[in-house]
Structures are given as structure tokens and as C-alpha cells.
């Protein structure tokens, strides 16, 4: 699959991200250099509810976005008329936030007669390793993406801009969701992933024999609800009230170990499927908030080494939700002359494959 890179709209691109609980804006120049960026976390507003509340998120996005965009434009030293285009995450995600971000972007685009680019959030993650300067060498197409976050959990063959094949994904919870739920069971604050990792550091990863769902099964789907239930049963055996720290640490470490083993196994299967499909392929990119977990990272890294794959993990600020990746996806799309109509309807569900420009089907693994 080849694209001709015709620089159509030269100039900086404004990116906007509002698909979950982070309000973010960034400006990149046409080469992908970050001119300014800002991320505003709504953590404090959602934390009392133990999770993201859609209506609270939507209200906060509308309240904060205009100032945030003004700030990055000011820091970049640009006026709206200088932009080559405006890119906004338009799905998948929480519809209230998607409407705010995409509508604001459309307002700027139509006032300045600039192209509007509706960005698929998953594509933004998928293309993020291509941001210039991130790695010593460029990560060329095609590569294998493992997207592991609180909302998403899938293995994707990234063949080109707009050209993706989903190799597998979760059958129930996303891996980050499982981390958060287990953390909650242990009495850790929300979002619990980082807290759980810290607690696990002082625990015994083999203290409890937890299930390894789908381990060794063909394909690269995931399942985490059974593992979470096993932890819930383990914890339910204890009386109400705070858990003993040593017990909680052993549970956390055992859970993390189970997840790491499963992810490493799934990664191996995904690499095999990907290589069968695309023989020259030799790189794996891990992205999403869970990619920051060191145990998981080490487990997947070992598999890539064993199978002769290069292993790339974008820095944490690019793995969690951000607008740099959205603006970058905008740059990549505008380079190909791709933009969207102002009638684009934000989509709470928007699978990556719906983007694909060429429909080659992947042989069954």
C-alpha cells in the first residue's frame, strides 16, 4: 500500500482532544515539531465518583477548552489564520466531550476557511510513534500496535495512514479498566493503575495462583473480567475495613504478574499473526496508559526480543491522552490531502478498520 506524499496544506496544525477526561490542545508545525501543548486533567472532579462521569466531563471540557486553545496558540506565537488546519478527536469516546471538541474546532475552521480534520482517537495513538524525533530512527509502516489503556485494548496492524487491521482485542474489560477495578477492590485511589504498580513492588508476584485468561489460546484476543472476579473473591474472604498492606501488596503483585504473562503471550501471538500477514514486518509499538507499567513493559519486551521484533514505547505523556498525537494525526492526514466535512457527526464508537482506505482482508490466524 503506497501513498503519495503531496504537501497540500503547509503550515501548523491545531489539535484538540476531549474524548474522555483530559482536555488537551497542541500546535505542531508541518514537520511535526511541537510548538505548544497543554493538558488539563479532570482527575480531581471525577475522583470522588470513583470513575469518569460523562456529564461532569462534558461540562468541564466546554468550560476549559477555549482558554486552553488560546494559551497554546499564544505560546506558539500564532494567529488562527496561520493554521493549515484544525484537527479534533471526533471518536471513539464519550459523546459529550467529542461534541465539544469537534464543534469548537469546526467553529475555528469555518471562521478561517481552514480544513477540519475529524481524528479517530485510536488512529492518533496508532500514528504517535511516527512523531519525528521520538525515537533515534523512524518507525516505518507497517508495524504492530498494542494499544493498552483504560478504554482500549487491542492489537492492530498499522499498514499506513488510514489503513489498519485489527488482529485482536478484549472480549470484556480493557486492561487498564481491570487495573482500576482491582485497585478499587484493594482500597487504592482512582485511577488505580499507578497506585497498584507501586503497591505490587513490595508484594510476592506468585503469592496467589490467579487465572491467566486465554493464555496459550490461538489468536490475540484478551479477557480480563475473570481475572478481576478471581481477585474480588480473594479480597471478599477478608472482613470489611482496610486490608493488611502485605496481603494487598501480594494480591497486587500476583494480579500484575498474571496480566503481564497474558499480555506477553498475546503479544507473541499477535507478532506471529502480523508476520504471517506482512512478512517483512519487524516492529512492535506499545501505547496507552498501561504501557507505562514496567512489569508489563519488561514482559512484552522479552517476547519482542525472542521473536526478533524491535520494541517501541512512546513516552508517558504521549501514551496517555494528549493533543500532540491528535495534531500529528492531523498533519499526517493533511499531507495526504485528507480532511472532513463540517457535517461530520462525532462517533462514540468508531473502529479503526472503518477508516481503512484499502480493504485487504487479513487471513485468519
Amino acid at each position, binding site marked *: 500500500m503506497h501513498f503519495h506524499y503531496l504537501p497540500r496544506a503547509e503550515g501548523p496544525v491545531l489539535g484538540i482532544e476531549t474524548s474522555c477526561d483530559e482536555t488537551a490542545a497542541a500546535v505542531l508545525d508541518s514537520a511535526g515539531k511541537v510548538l505548544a501543548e497543554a493538558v488539563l486533567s479532570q482527575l480531581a472532579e471525577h475522583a470522588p465518583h470513583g470513575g469518569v462521569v460523562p456529564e461532569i466531563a462534558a461540562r468541564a471540557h466546554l468550560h476549559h477548552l477555549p482558554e486552553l486553545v488560546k494559551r497554546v496558540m499564544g505560546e506558539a506565537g500564532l494567529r488562527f489564520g496561520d493554521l493549515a488546519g484544525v484537527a479534533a478527536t471526533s471518536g471513539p469516546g464519550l459523546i459529550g466531550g467529542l461534541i465539544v471538541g469537534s464543534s469548537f474546532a469546526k467553529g475555528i475552521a469555518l471562521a478561517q476557511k481552514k480544513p477540519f480534520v475529524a481524528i479517530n482517537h485510536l488512529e492518533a495513538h496508532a500514528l504517535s510513534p511516527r512523531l519525528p524525533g521520538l525515537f533515534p530512527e523512524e518507525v516505518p509502516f507497517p508495524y504492530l500496535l498494542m494499544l493498552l489503556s483504560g478504554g482500549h485494548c487491542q492489537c492492530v496492524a498499522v499498514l499506513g495512514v488510514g489503513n489498519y487491521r485489527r488482529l485482536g482485542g478484549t472480549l470484556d474489560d480493557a486492561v487498564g479498566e481491570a487495573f482500576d477495578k482491582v485497585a478499587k477492590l484493594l482500597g487504592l485511589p482512582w485511577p488505580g493503575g499507578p497506585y497498584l504498580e507501586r503497591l505490587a513492588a513490595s508484594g510476592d508476584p506468585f503469592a496467589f495462583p490467579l487465572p491467566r485468561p486465554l493464555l496459550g489460546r490461538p489468536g490475540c484476543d484478551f479477557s480480563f473480567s475473570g481475572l478481576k472476579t478471581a481477585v474480588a473473591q480473594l479480597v471478599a474472604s477478608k472482613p470489611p475495613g482496610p486490608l493488611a498492606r502485605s496481603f494487598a501488596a501480594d494480591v497486587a503483585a500476583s494480579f500484575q504478574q498474571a496480566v503481564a504473562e497474558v499480555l506477553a503471550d498475546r503479544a507473541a501471538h499477535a507478532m506471529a499473526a502480523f508476520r504471517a500477514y506482512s512478512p517483512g514486518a519487524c516492529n512492535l509499538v506499545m501505547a496507552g496508559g498501561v504501557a507505562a507499567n514496567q512489569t508489563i513493559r519488561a514482559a512484552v519486551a522479552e517476547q519482542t526480543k525472542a521473536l526478533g521484533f524491535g520494541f517501541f514505547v512512546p513516552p508517558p505523556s504521549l501514551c496517555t491522552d494528549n493533543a500532540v498525537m491528535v495534531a500529528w494525526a492531523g498533519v499526517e492526514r493533511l499531507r495526504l490531502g485528507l480532511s472532513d466535512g463540517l*457535517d461530520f457527526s462525532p462517533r462514540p464508537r468508531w473502529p479503526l478498520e472503518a477508516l481503512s482506505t484499502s480493504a485487504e482482508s487479513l487471513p485468519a490466524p
Partner: protein
Amino acid sequence: MRVLALDSALATASVAVLQEEEVLTEQIVPPSGNGHAATLPPLLERVLDEVGAGEIHLIGVTVGPGRFTGIRAGLALAYGLGEALGCPVMGVSVAEALAEELARGARPLVGRELWVAIDSYRGHVFLERPGKRESVALEQLAEPAGPVAIAGDAAIAVAARLAARGADVMLTDLRAPKARFVASVAARRSRGELPPLAAEPLYLDPPATRAPASPPRPAPVA
């Protein structure tokens, strides 16, 4: 002064450009399966092509009460336009726009308070009346102090309730704002003829949240 106005607080959306007292253009989008976030921007583009984006001095937008999603679509669009055009954005309430339409109509209200009732779709109504905006159950509507006129998309239900209690009620045929009147209210507000109103949604209801099923376990202890 040229004013661009948009309304997407209720099921029908509209866009208009007003030059002093003259309506240069007005476009109305009937309710459809596509949300306002999809239908309003292309309409605005056509309107701006017609009148010229550079010629806009002020943007008026309805802030509710109404459907939160539609209000946010309209406000976000207005904010983006305002930032990129460098012109101020003025908030206009649904009742202000409807009152403006009544005042300019053939049969202006005389001696009646205007009560605007909007369906919250959550078992109660948003009621906007002189000096008060509230979210209230139909069963708990206040007693009008004198004769009232009712407008808004929940007008029939509210008028029926009040009439059944023997209140002096007139049901108007105004169900939703029109952008041209949003524009004229915005212009008056910018001239200081109306009290200020922030260009932010009039939510009237706190965000819907669900209480956790069971109390969370406290943090582990050594």
C-alpha cells in the same frame, strides 16, 4: 452592527444574521436524526459565505435552559467562531429570545408574566420566569401571583397543570427560540440594555451521577 446568532438548545436549531433591525438571513434546521453538532456547522458555513465572515461584530447564542448536548454543541461552535473571528460571544436565555419574539409580535403580552417551560426529559421541567430559573417537578410548580402566559416545549403540560388549579393562564404558540430574536437580544445585551448573562450553559440540574454500589474499601494499612 452585524450580529450572528445560533440556537440549538431544543429540538429545532436555527442560525441568523441581523444587521441592525434587518434580518439578512435566517436558516432553520428541523429536528432530525443527526444531532446539532453535525447539522449546525454546514449551515453556518453557508450563512457566512452569504454574508461574509469578516463582517460579523457579535455572536449571540442560546445558553438554555434546554438539552445540555445541544446547548454545548452551539456554545462550543460559537466559542470557536468567536475566537477565530475575534468577536465577543453573548449568552441569551431561551426565555429572553421567546420574550423578544412576543414583544415584537402582533399581540404583545399585556399584564401577563411570561413563564417558559422546557422539558428536561428527566421527569421535570426547567422553568424560566421573571427573576427565577429552576428545575422543578410538574407537581411542585409554584402558584403564579397573577395572570401568566406560557411558552416553551413543555408549555402545554405546564399550562394544563396551572389551569387545573384555577390559575389565569394563557397558552402561547411559542415553543422554541428563533435565531433572529436571539440576535436582537444579544445586540441589546451588548448595548447594556439587559443585565449581563455569562455565555455558559444554564444547566439548572447538577450532573447525573450514580452512587457506588457499595462503600469503597479503605486504603490498606501496615
